[in-house]
Structure formats: structure tokens, C-alpha cells
């Protein structure tokens, strides 16, 4: 329906029903706007698809955390023995993969449903179709049955997120799965090769290994590239100690299917040129994600602020076309996190419909990698702080620590480590906090608020800790890297 005398079908059309899109849509409706949300999931190469809610709900944060939890619970059963629990036969303890995936998928479906009900309650029109631009104010949604629906809107928000990238090697698309498929995999994954050592690859390898499925990781350059490398090392050391095999500086060459149905993967070490191969039951590609902007037909809308990787460059979430915006993973150079998309989406809606001016603050966003031993952080990595301010102007406080609960079951404490990166000059404003240990996400969250308030080392050291916790270790920091003193703990309670 073409706009008549400037009237559009909607005040706002959101392309993408994920974290960012839905948050923006719901906030807009609260502010009186007439809103429609388009959401569509193109099946993965292996045929997996899912419902409303986006990556986080269906194939990201939620199922990941649930499987991570399942893995931790498995470890807990073993630890419980040391605490006196009489566990019948420890070697009989094993994971029932179908039961796990059913429980996880049931939860996801309940969230899909609540999301749909919520949209209906709020009178947001939901269109299950793949959206593309016809012109700056017109979208065409292609539904599953092939029919097309034209929608006009005053404002349009692109919140299409991204999907897993497959390397261009033989067998990748035909035989390999990705994070799109693992959480609903119809058969136990068995011995798995994870290609990629970003947080998705490491988290998957981590929980698979803990669930009893041997995992191998191919690391192209370094693990958790972009994160503090010392902490990334601690994370991977712990995973190695738990049995995950790492092949560093290796890139995949090919994946072929054997008569047994298993997969033979070949790789090459880019430094030594040495080749390696092994047979796996599953090969999981975790080699990055790409933004879903190609199918949007951005040209028809005149949107040109697109990077080489396909992401949208929009510093204030507004594209070069004044009525078209973008939010979430589709944005260039912004943290690809659900809370970031949600917060940015809400602020954007307020700027669009309530005359607000507050921009999204993308700095000091806390995040956590949910590997078996978790890594939580907020602010700058040590490398970034040093590069930005110079070694002379930066002070790093660090410490190894021993969680009280680890003693009895004799859990490995070698990688329990934390550090605070601060400006050297008093009062030593904190630039970054890093923590590897149990419940790292819970530990770091509160400190994110502190960093936002500009917390200094003086304030941190004057904070009384809660005992016995692992979070209190931040308040006990007193040894600097510069001093060269031993950061290992003498004993607790002193």
C-alpha cells in the first residue's frame, strides 16, 4: 500500500524479531507508536530452524547457558562424593543427550510462545516473513508459502542480526554443523571437532567435553581474539587440563564423509605447514558470524553505510537514510551482546518517539565467556590499556586465588586468577577488571556498575569483601605486576 499524503501503515517497522528488534518495538509501542515486527529464520545448511525471539533465545545465550549448566552439574555430581554424598555408581553417571536437548528445546519453545503472546498483547503486528527494502519507506515481506506482503512505515529499524559463517573448504556446508544446529542436534554429537576458538567455539567445546563428548579445537591464530590474552590463556589451559585437545595455528583444509558415516577432517598448521587429520562424529564450525544484510536489498532504500563485512556503520544507530536505523549484531564495531542490543533498541525507540536525546554508551560493557571455568570482564584488556596509555601510565594489580569450595574435591586452582588494570596515577581509576573462575558472570556484573561510576583502586581496596566468596578477591588485590612479587595466595582469611 503506497503512502497516501504522507500516511504510512506503521510508525515503525522492525526487521528482525530478536533481542534488539523486540526491545525497540515494545518500547515504541509503550510510547504510542503503531509497530510491526518482521521475523524469519532461513533454515541452516543442515535444515535447522526456530521460532520468534532471535539468536539469543533460540541458538545463542539461552541454550548455551543451559548446556553449560548441564555440564557443570555433571561435574558437581563427581565433586559431591568428596563432600560425603553417597553416589551409587560414579561410572554409570552419563548424559542422556535426547533428554537434555528436549528439556532445552521445551524451554526455548515456551519462550517463543510467551514472546508471541506478548507481541499480541501489546498489539504489535508480527509478520513471519523475510523482509527486504523496496524504497526507504516500503518493505516487502516474503512469507513461507512464497506470498509477498508490502508494508510501509515512517521509520524502519534493521535488527537482522547475523548467522554462522562457514569456511570455504570442501565438505564444510555439506557435512558440518554450527551453533545453529548443536542445541537441537537429533543425535548425540560424539567425538567433536570444533573449528574456531572464539567464545562460541570455546563454549561449545567446553560443555561438549564436560558432557562426555571428546572435543578438539582448531585455533587459527589465538583463542578469544580481541579479549585479554592472558585471561584467554587461563581459560584454554583449564580446558586442556579437562581433556580438550587444542591444535594451535591450524586452519581446516577439508571435511569428508567416511563410509561409517563419520567425518574425516584435515587441517594444516600455518606456521610449520605440518598437516594433521582425525576422524570425528561431528564437526562444528565456529569461525565467526556475518550480518544478514545481503538479502535486505539496502540499495533500494539508498542505505550505503555498509562495511566490507556487510555490517551497518551507524554510530548513533542511524544510517545515512534519516528514517532507517540499525540495532544489534548487525552494527559494525559494537559488542555483539543481547543486553547491548536491548539497551540500544530501547534508547533508540525513545529518541524516535519520545524526543529523548540519550545515546547508547557502548563503553565498559561487561561480558562473560561461559567456558567450563568462566571468564568475566569489564573495560579494557591489559593490552589495550597499555597501547592506549603506555606502560608507564598503567598499573596492573593481580592475584591467583583458591576458592574455598575447591579444596575438598581437590579441584584445580591453577587457573583461578584475576586482575585490575588501572591508571598508575592516584587515585588509580580502574580501566578494566578481569576474572577467571566459577560464576564469573555473577562476580563481574556488580563491578560493571562500579566501573561506570569511575571506581578507583583506592575505592576498591577500601571496599570490605564478603567472605567466603570468590568475588571478594577483587577487594583483596594489592600486588602489582610491576613489583614482581608473587601473586599466589599465602592463605585465606588474612
Amino acid at each position: 500500500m503506497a503512502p497516501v499524503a504522507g500516511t504510512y501503515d506503521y510508525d515503525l517497522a522492525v526487521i528482525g524479531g530478536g533481542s534488539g528488534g523486540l526491545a525497540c518495538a515494545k518500547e515504541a509501542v509503550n510510547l504510542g507508536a503503531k509497530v510491526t515486527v518482521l521475523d524469519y529464520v532461513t533454515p541452516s545448511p543442515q535444515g535447522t530452524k526456530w521460532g520468534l525471539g532471535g539468536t539469543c533465545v533460540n541458538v545463542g545465550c539461552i541454550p548455551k547457558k543451559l548446556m553449560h549448566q548441564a555440564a557443570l552439574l555433571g561435574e558437581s555430581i563427581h565433586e559431591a562424593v568428596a563432600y560425603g554424598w553417597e553416589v551409587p555408581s560414579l561410572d554409570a553417571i552419563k548424559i542422556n543427550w535426547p533428554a537434555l536437548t528436549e528439556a532445552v528445546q521445551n524451554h526455548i519453545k515456551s519462550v517463543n510462545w510467551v514472546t508471541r503472546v506478548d507481541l499480541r498483547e501489546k498489539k504489535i503486528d508480527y509478520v513471519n516473513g523475510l523482509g527486504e527494502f523496496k524504497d526507504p519507506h516500503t518493505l516487502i515481506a516474503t512469507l513461507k508459502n512464497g506470498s509477498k506482503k508490502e508494508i510501509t512505515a515512517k521509520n524502519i529499524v534493521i535488527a537482522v542480526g547475523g548467522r554462522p559463517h562457514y569456511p570455504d573448504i570442501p565438505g564444510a556446508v555439506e557435512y558440518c554443523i554450527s551453533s545453529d544446529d548443536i542445541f537441537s542436534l537429533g543425535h548425540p554429537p560424539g567425538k567433536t571437532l570444533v573449528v574456531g576458538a572464539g567464545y562460541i567455539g570455546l563454549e561449545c567445546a567446553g560443555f561438549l567435553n564436560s558432557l562426555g563428548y571428546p572435543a578438539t579445537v582448531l585455533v587459527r591464530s589465538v583463542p578469544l581474539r580481541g579479549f585479554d590474552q592472558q585471561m584467554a590463556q587461563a581459560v584454554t589451559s583449564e580446558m586442556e587440563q579437562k581433556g580438550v585437545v587444542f591444535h594451535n595455528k591450524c586452519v581446516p583444509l577439508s571435511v569428508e564423509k567416511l563410509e561409517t558415516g563419520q567425518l574425516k577432517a584435515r587441517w594444516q598448521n600455518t606456521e610449520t605447514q605440518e598437516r594433521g587429520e582425525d576422524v570425528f562424529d561431528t564437526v562444528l564450525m565456529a569461525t565467526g558470524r556475518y550480518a544478514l544484510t545481503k538479502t535486505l536489498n539496502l540499495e533500494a532504500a539508498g542505505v550505503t553505510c555498509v562495511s566490507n563485512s556487510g555490517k551497518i556503520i551507524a554510530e548513533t544507530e542511524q544510517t545515512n537514510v534519516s528514517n532507517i536505523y540499525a540495532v544489534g549484531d548487525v552494527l559494525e564495531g559494537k559488542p555483539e551482546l543481547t543486553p547491548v542490543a536491548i539497551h540500544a533498541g530501547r534508547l533508540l525507540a525513545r529518541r524516535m518517539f519520545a524526543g529523548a536525546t540519550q545515546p547508547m554508551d557502548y563503553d565498559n560493557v561487561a561480558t562473560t565467556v561461559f567456558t567450563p571455568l568462566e571468564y568475566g570482564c569489564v573495560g579494557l584488556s591489559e593490552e589495550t590499556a597499555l597501547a592506549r596509555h603506555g606502560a608507564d601510565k598503567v598499573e596492573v594489580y593481580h592475584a591467583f586465588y583458591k576458592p574455598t569450595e575447591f579444596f575438598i574435591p581437590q579441584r584445580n586452582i591453577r587457573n583461578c586468577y584475576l586482575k585490575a588494570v588501572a591508571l598508575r596515577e592516584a587515585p588509580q581509576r580502574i580501566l578494566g577488571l578481569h576474572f577467571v573462575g566459577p560464576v564469573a558472570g555473577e562476580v563481574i556484573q556488580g563491578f560493571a556498575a562500579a566501573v561506570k561510576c569511575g571506581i578507583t583502586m583506592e575505592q576498591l581496596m577500601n571496599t570490605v569483601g564478603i567472605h567466603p566468596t570468590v568475588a571478594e578477591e577483587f577487594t583483596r588485590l594489592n600486588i602489582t605486576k610491576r613489583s614482581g612479587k608473587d601473586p599466589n595466595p599465602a592463605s585465606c582469611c588474612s
Partner: protein
Amino acid sequence: MSNAICKSLRSPVRNLASLKKAISTSLVHNETILVRNNEEFINKVMNNDKPVIVNFHAEWCEPCKILTPQLKQLIEPLTDLDLAVVDVEDNADLVHTFEVKAVPAVIAIKNGLIVDKFIGLVETDMITCLINRMSGKKKEGT
């Protein structure tokens, strides 16, 4: 469609004779009513001369998998009370009309009016109490 349901809710007095024609003849006494669309709901629940316990159910909901069989077991033997199961995935309109925000949800309908409602898996006592009230039985000792 929800309009028709709302109207039925507001007018308890109806011409029973004309309605009997609307009731599907395939309705077997005491068999649980499986509601697949709004029309079935109006015919077999709103226009039912017997009170009906309507159970909003979802396959992905663990508590539903406990409650629904329990309700079937308690209600199927009764001749003066019916049970209708509404799968929330197939009946978005009904979910919206009855403002069902969580499952399991149980709504008791008598003569086209909502006379009771509970959300979640409640204790067996509460369920049997509701059933007794709906089927006109007086619970002993109350």
C-alpha cells in the same frame, strides 16, 4: 472470532433447542474434547449444557504433562462434567481472549460463563475441589 466468544460470555440465556443442532454429533459423552479451532470451542464448550473444565496445554510445558493426564483421569468418568483441552500453539485466538499468559491454565466454564480459573500446576486437593463444585457434588465435610 473472539467477538463471538465474548458475546457468548455476556449472554447466558440462549435458545437451547437451536443450539443442540450446532453441537457436533460426533461428541461422545465423557471423552475429552480436543479443541482445534474457535468453532469447535463455541460448539463444544460455550454451547455445552454441561459445565466444562477448559485446560490450556502446551507440549513443551512439563507441568502440563502432569496436570492434563490428571484432569483426564478425574473428569472422564464423570457424566455431568466435560473436559476440553486447548493446545496453546494451535489456538492463538482463544489464548488471547481468555488472557492466558502462562500454562497450564484451567478455566471452568458453565453456561458460557467463566466461573473459575487457576494458573499453574496446583495441588490435587484444589483440582478435586473445583471438579466437585462444577459437577454439583458437595465435598464432604465442607
